[in-house]
């Protein structure tokens, strides 16, 4: 099978054309031999006896006539125990291993196995000999960090199999045979604890795909209350540079209530990956009490690494997410930034001399983006458990303008949109998600009517604010001015959140509900305020009290004390609860 060879006939950037004999398939992996090293590449177009391949490495030094070896396999990820805590490049080479092999630099043609071949895992069989199994059903488990890692019938095996033999409980490496399956024709298939899966194909070994209904808490108030994300849902975060996309994702990766987080750094700064690498092993995951790194996988293809493997990296990441979902776990995939992935497609498309679409992006941009986000989802597994993959992607629109193709194509397929704005980040209002343009189709952790009530104040306040820019404070009525102050206060105490403060950054849904109710009281009340100055000073004091409250631990003594101070101030301002707010708090509409 692997005898298939070809010869280089042309080179243009990282696109190389190869004349081949025999058969090659689309997306097949091949290696270009140059100066004793082999450069991994992928077939991306076939015309007659010429295959065009994208080389995942720098192509310097390749010449016509160089040998190319086809493998017959598609780009695939190695799946099995030992993925958690790893740092991979876009092709699943563990970066620390590459560093041991090659030192400072990522030398080309240097590859390593994704999983440790020697390490022994404690295998426990869970299926009996004679059991009938299908792809994606498990027959054993090993402990991996805080999780029970299930060992599956490889996803690529079609049809049903009978378990002919299974290993005893004991320690095995990932390549040792732990079970023998027998197919319908009686052929025996030995299986180990790991297998490969082509990354560009979605894993579909589930019983049923479910609607994403359960909200994934991110502990960011603005997201959970106003623009929530569901487990198994998708969301995107577009924003200009410097608006805090990466910090927001960083926070999410720490606090989101999921089992596993996969961070795909796609064409971004190496420095940010270093930050995660330095910080995560030190942080404790409150859910498991263990290092945060044990539930994290980092796929890192920074901007200076070859562009073709940047394109592959998002697929490698989502494949691992699907693999852990199959174990009944909730997985969050954070891709930063999908624009760099789209640009990688654009670069290759340009080299292939395809007819360009908008802004020279390829015409298939939208369908590729849609197909990627569609790999998220909440599923019912063969064993009756539920698992989910949630995908959150940042988008880096050129010039911060959301009208560009990648943002628009993404907005069509995601379930929530967190648009970051330059104005908010310039004003140091973090997270800089613009509440006036963002939206979500998922369920809030509070109640929709209460959210609508708060949003209404924000909208109204914003209108008055822009009017005030024209007519000045003098030209605004006291009533309107108070609405404006209320909107400002809501923004300052609820929408804005300090992601560097351990308590404020970690606002649970119970707390969000509690604080929302308190805010509805304060915002839905009329006050006896004589003039604008006293109104401003009253709301300033109130704001300060709320912010102090945010920094106290939920239900602690300090919490009760701060709450009490708010109530005293409220009484001081002679607050009268309005009808609408009263009905809301009683559970009516």
């Amino acid at each position, binding site marked *: 099978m692997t005898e298939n060879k070809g010869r280089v006939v042309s080179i243009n950037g990282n696109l190389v054309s190869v004349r081949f004999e025999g058969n090659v398939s689309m997306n097949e992996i091949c290696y270009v031999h140059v100066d004793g090293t082999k450069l991994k590449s992928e077939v991306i177009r076939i015309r007659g006896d010429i295959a065009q391949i994208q080389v995942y490495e720098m*192509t310097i*030094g390749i010449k016509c*006539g160089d040998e190319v070896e086809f493998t017959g396999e598609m780009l695939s990820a190695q799946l099995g125990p030992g993925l958690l805590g790893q740092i991979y490049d876009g092709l699943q080479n563990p970066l620390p291993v590459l*560093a041991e092999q090659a030192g400072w630099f990522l030398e080309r043609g240097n590859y390593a196995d994704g999983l440790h071949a020697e390490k022994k895992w404690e295998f426990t069989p869970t299926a009996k000999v004679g059991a009938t199994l299908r792809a994606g059903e498990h027959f054993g488990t090993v402990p991996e960090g805080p999780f029970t890692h299930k060992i599956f019938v490889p996803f690529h095996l079609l049809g049903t199999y009978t378990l002919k033999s299974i290993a005893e409980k004991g320690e095995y490496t990932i390549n040792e045979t732990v079970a023998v399956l027998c197919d319908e024709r009686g052929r025996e298939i030995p299986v180990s604890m790991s297998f490969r899966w082509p990354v560009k194909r979605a894993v579909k070994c589930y019983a049923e795909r479910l609607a994403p209904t359960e909200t994934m808490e991110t502990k960011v108030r603005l997201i959970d209350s106003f623009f929530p994300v569901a487990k198994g849902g998708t969301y995107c975060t577009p924003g200009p540079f*410097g608006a805090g996309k990466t910090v927001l994702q960083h926070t999410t990766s720490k606090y989101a209530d999921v089992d596993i987080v996969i961070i795909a750094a796609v064409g971004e700064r190496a420095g940010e990956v*270093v930050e995660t690498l330095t910080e995560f092993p030190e942080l404790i995951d409150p859910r498991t009490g263990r290092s945060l790194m044990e539930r994290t996988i980092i796929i890192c293809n920074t901007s200076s690494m070859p562009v073709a493997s940047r394109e592959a990296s998002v697929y490698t990441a989502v494949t691992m997410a699907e693999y852990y979902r199959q174990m009944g776990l909730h997985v969050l995939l954070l891709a930063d930034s999908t624009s760099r992935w789209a*640009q990688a497609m654009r670069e290759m498309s340009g080299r292939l001399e395809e007819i360009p679409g908008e802004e*020279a992006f390829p015409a298939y941009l939208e369908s590729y983006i849609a197909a990627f986000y569609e790999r998220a989802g909440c599923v019912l597994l063969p064993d009756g458990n539920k698992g989910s993959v949630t995908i959150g992607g940042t988008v880096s629109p*050129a010039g911060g303008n959301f009208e560009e193709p990648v943002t628009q194509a993404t907005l069509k397929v995601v379930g929530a949109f967190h648009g970051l704005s330059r104005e908010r980040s310039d004003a140091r209002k973090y997270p800089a998600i613009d509440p006036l343009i963002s939206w979500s189709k998922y369920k809030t952790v509070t109640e929709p009517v209460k959210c609508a009530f708060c949003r209404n104040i924000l909208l109204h306040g914003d209108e008055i604010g822009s009017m005030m820019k024209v007519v000045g404070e003098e030209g605004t009525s006291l009533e309107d001015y108070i609405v404006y102050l209320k909107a400002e206060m809501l923004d300052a105490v609820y929408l804005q959140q300090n992601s560097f403060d351990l308590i404020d950054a970690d606002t649970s849904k119970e707390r969000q509900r509690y604080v929302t109710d308190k805010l509805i009281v304060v915002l839905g009340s009329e006050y006896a305020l004589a003039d604008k100055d006293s109104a401003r000073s009253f709301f300033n004091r109130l704001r300060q009290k709320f912010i102090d409250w945010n920094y106290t631990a939920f239900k602690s003594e300090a919490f009760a004390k701060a709450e009490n101070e708010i109530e005293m101030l409220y009484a001081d301002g002679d607050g009268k609860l309005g009808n609408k707010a009263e009905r809301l708090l009683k559970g009516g509409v």
Partner: protein
Amino acid sequence: MSKVYNKIESVTGNVITVRADGVRYQELAQITTRFGKSLAQVNKIDGNLVSLQVFAGGQGVSTGDEVRFLGHEMRVSFSEDLLGRIFDGSGEPRDKGPALTDNMKSIGGPSVNPTKRILANRMMRTNIPMIDMFNTLVVSQKLPIFSISGEPYNQLLARIALQADADVIVLGGMGLKYDDFLYFKEELSNGGALSKTVMFIHTASDPTVECMMIPDMALAVAEQFALQDKDVLVLLTDMTNFADSMKEIAITQEQVPSNRGYPGDLYSQLASRYEKAVDFANSGSVTVLAVTTMPGDDVTHPVPDNTGYITEGQYYLKGGRIEPFGSLSRLKQNVNGKTRKDHRALMDAMIRLYSSYKETLEKKNMGFAMSRWDEKLLKYGLLFENRLMDLSVNMPLEESLDTGWKILAECFEKDETGIKSDLTEAFWPVN
């Protein structure tokens, strides 16, 4: 044995094609024209038809000119002898010194393994208050200086070159005006920094292709010094010219343009240069400061826009000053917590007050009445601009902080500054 060809098939702009066998991608060739010899680099191979970009340009190239392939890619000599020297975009000496051919290193090498980097956490002092105090430069940071043409960005670079506490300075000039080149040379030699500087200079009148080589050569040299435990500061001016050269070549070769004529890989091309900034674990570092002129002061222009997504902040040069608002050093919080305990609080308070000053100024210009508070702010803004923002101000960080306190004390009462009282108690100047 190098191969010689003398049948050039086509000449388009700066790109020529020849039929040749066994040529490697990105290999160098030497072409001999009526004007002398020039280097050329293979940038496309299609069967035996090889395209080369000619460093000296396509002008005067005859179809019968001789092309000799050299069998290696673009390289640069590396040794201590580089210090104090000036080279052009082909790596030839621009000064009167000898050509260097020892220890040749490839340029544009592979990127650093992210697991071999360490978190940037050392301050690089420049003695410019707007940098040291408000947007601290950090060792291994990559920062552009966004500027409109006409701003004194080269003067700023020269000052940073003279004052920054780096072991080695590498200056890469792209499309530099000849006067500016002379200015740099003179400033650095007067300041006594020439002996720790290497310059790669492409002037506006030099061929376009050479312009594209400058960043790679400068950064390759910097990387080598860094691996010898040196802290290297790379100054590049101007990256917009670099991007424009890429655009020129791409269009000549009929590549599909993406945005305003720039090639689709602009982001990757810029990133692969900027990402050379690094702090090696247990070794030296490379810090990159690069001028990016913004055509028409438009930050959404593809070059500054892509740059902004790559770099760790930016200095925004406007009206002869580093603007406190547009400027940002993303890494400053890694270092400004351990300089002096009043650093962060004072920085925040002064910026906040300056922003109030700007609002007041706007109100004043619209003819609104000025309150007592407004008057205070107006005084403060003026003092701030003169004593700290002015580019000619030159003092170490500690003195800048003291100056900051003095300005506050001249304009405000303690509790008007919004700084925590234990800090005002400790640092408020007594007079």
